[in-house]
């Protein structure tokens, strides 16, 4: 079982050599893919954190009719096949999508990549953030209020630090998902070098042209993914505070 899981990863390293790796990473196509992935993933993460954090806090602390439905909808992209996500995005905000008549239309552009990554990766963060915020004791927030903190200050100084391990874990998971995104990006944004061809798309594109380029990019993704996994384990293990319990409040 373990051999089965580890063998492909080991094979990637056995097939490539440092010399070939460096020459491949020097290729403009490869460099552009790396740079594009970095840029689009960073933008998507900024969007996910910026909108997802307040949204998750709202969902974790407020009770309203239909809350369970909203949470389920937020989590939906988690189980949606990426190709379906891509089709859905095209149908909604593609060139012939339902929002096209009012001028909201993306596709075949870097912005479209960011949208696809955000759509697919956001539930990974929001789910974690929701659980972490839900695990923050409400009386601790009350205590901060009686000690002179406004609602925003209590959020920034008490809620965020208390939920931090869970937020970091959620960010890492969303980061991993966004970096590896393939299907939705391909469907919605296409695969154009330097514009929409992220690392996974470049791997697919190069493996029939120059296999060692695909291998080199794979090595980079394996290393980054391993680093993400380790950082999540480190944060979870090192802090007893991490809230991964169910939402409450």
């Amino acid at each position: 079982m373990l051999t089965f899981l580890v063998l492909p990863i080991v094979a990637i390293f056995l097939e490539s050599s440092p010399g070939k790796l460096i020459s491949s990473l020097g290729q403009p196509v490869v460099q552009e893919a790396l740079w594009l992935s970095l840029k689009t993933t960073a933008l998507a993460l900024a969007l996910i954190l910026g909108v997802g954090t307040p949204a998750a806090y709202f969902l974790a602390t407020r009770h309203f009719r239909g809350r369970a439905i909203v949470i389920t909808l937020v989590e939906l992209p988690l189980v949606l096949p990426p190709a379906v996500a891509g089709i859905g995005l095209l149908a909604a905000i593609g060139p012939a999508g339902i929002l096209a008549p009012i001028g909201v239309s993306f596709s075949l552009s870097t912005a479209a990549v960011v949208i696809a990554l955000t759509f697919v990766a956001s539930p990974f963060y929001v789910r974690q953030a929701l659980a972490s915020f839900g695990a923050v004791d409400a009386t601790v927030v009350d205590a901060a209020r009686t000690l002179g903190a406004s609602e925003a200050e209590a959020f920034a100084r008490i809620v965020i630090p208390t939920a931090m391990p869970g937020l970091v874990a959620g960010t890492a998971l969303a980061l991993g998902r966004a970096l590896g995104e393939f299907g939705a990006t391909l469907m919605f944004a296409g695969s154009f070098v330097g514009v929409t061809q992220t690392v996974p798309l470049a791997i697919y594109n190069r493996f029939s042209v120059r296999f060692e380029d695909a291998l080199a990019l794979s090595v980079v993704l394996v290393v980054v993914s391993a680093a993400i996994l380790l950082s999540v384990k480190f944060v979870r293990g090192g802090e007893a505070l991490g809230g991964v319990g169910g939402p409450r409040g």
Partner: protein
Amino acid sequence: MLGALELDVDLRVAPGECLALAGPSGAGKSSVLRIVAGLLTPRDGRVRCADETWLDTGRGIDRAPDLRRCGYVFQEYALFAHLSAWQNVAFGMRKDVPRGQRRGRAMALLERFGMSARCDARPRTLSGGERQRVALARALARAPRALLLDEPLSALDARTRAAASRELQAILAEVGVPAVLVTHDFLEAAALGHRVGVIDDGRVVQEGRPADLAMRPASPFVADFTGASVLTGTARRHDGGLTRVALDGGGEVSSTDGVDGPVAASIFPWEVIIEPLGSASHSSAGNHVHAKVVSITQIGERVRLGLATPQPLAAEVTRDSVRELQLSAGSEVTATFKVSATRLTPR
């Protein structure tokens, strides 16, 4: 968070005075504190502190909790887990004390509570007693205009509780602001409160000095809550000033209180004398009730006996008398208590 709790209270607390709100859980005690602090807004209500109005629903005033300056000690202390003890204390100083002086001020307060050695410890490494002191120091750090204490001693073990109670009394006397304390334990309320308000089902059923409540409970509920045994029955006044009460389930007691009709007779456990069956001295001033020992619980040097008369009655005796009378569960005895120690309240 709350369902619909009916709360109807009117409380006044003078500077330096401590009002203890006592009652069973779910009676609405904590809600009173939350309303004063601004953490809960009632449909109708007013809260004033000295010359400031904190809440007046009629005039649309509802000052935010961070602007009310209440020192609040929460039930489980609600310390900030990611901050050290001194940072917890310093949290409330951010608006009033320059950054450079906060640590010094916090340390001085922790010193006052004998906690300076633990200033860098995180809350989860502190004992219950230490947490309570950090929570108190934190509540006092902001020069509060009122002090609110929610079950400040209930998270402590019995040994720590006695010391913490004495310490808390000294602090309350020293701070000189109005204080409201909430507890489910009448003895704690009596120890810490200048006045005690017994609250049940959202209403203050009796308010007064602790001794008055114990001596003249206004209702069977208060009598029961103050630790007295409550026997129900029907009273009829007799010549010579005595009232006879036919107890439900059998037996009869007399009282000097003049009441007719359905009553609750309350007797404190330490007023009850236990004598062997048949040997009781039949003085006219005594109530004698045939009782069966149900339970024997040792509390330090005292022993609390649970009796069935057939209604439940508690008695407190010394360890020696348990040995002398060879008491055990099932022993039949005569419980004797003075007619004047039998308080009647109409039901």
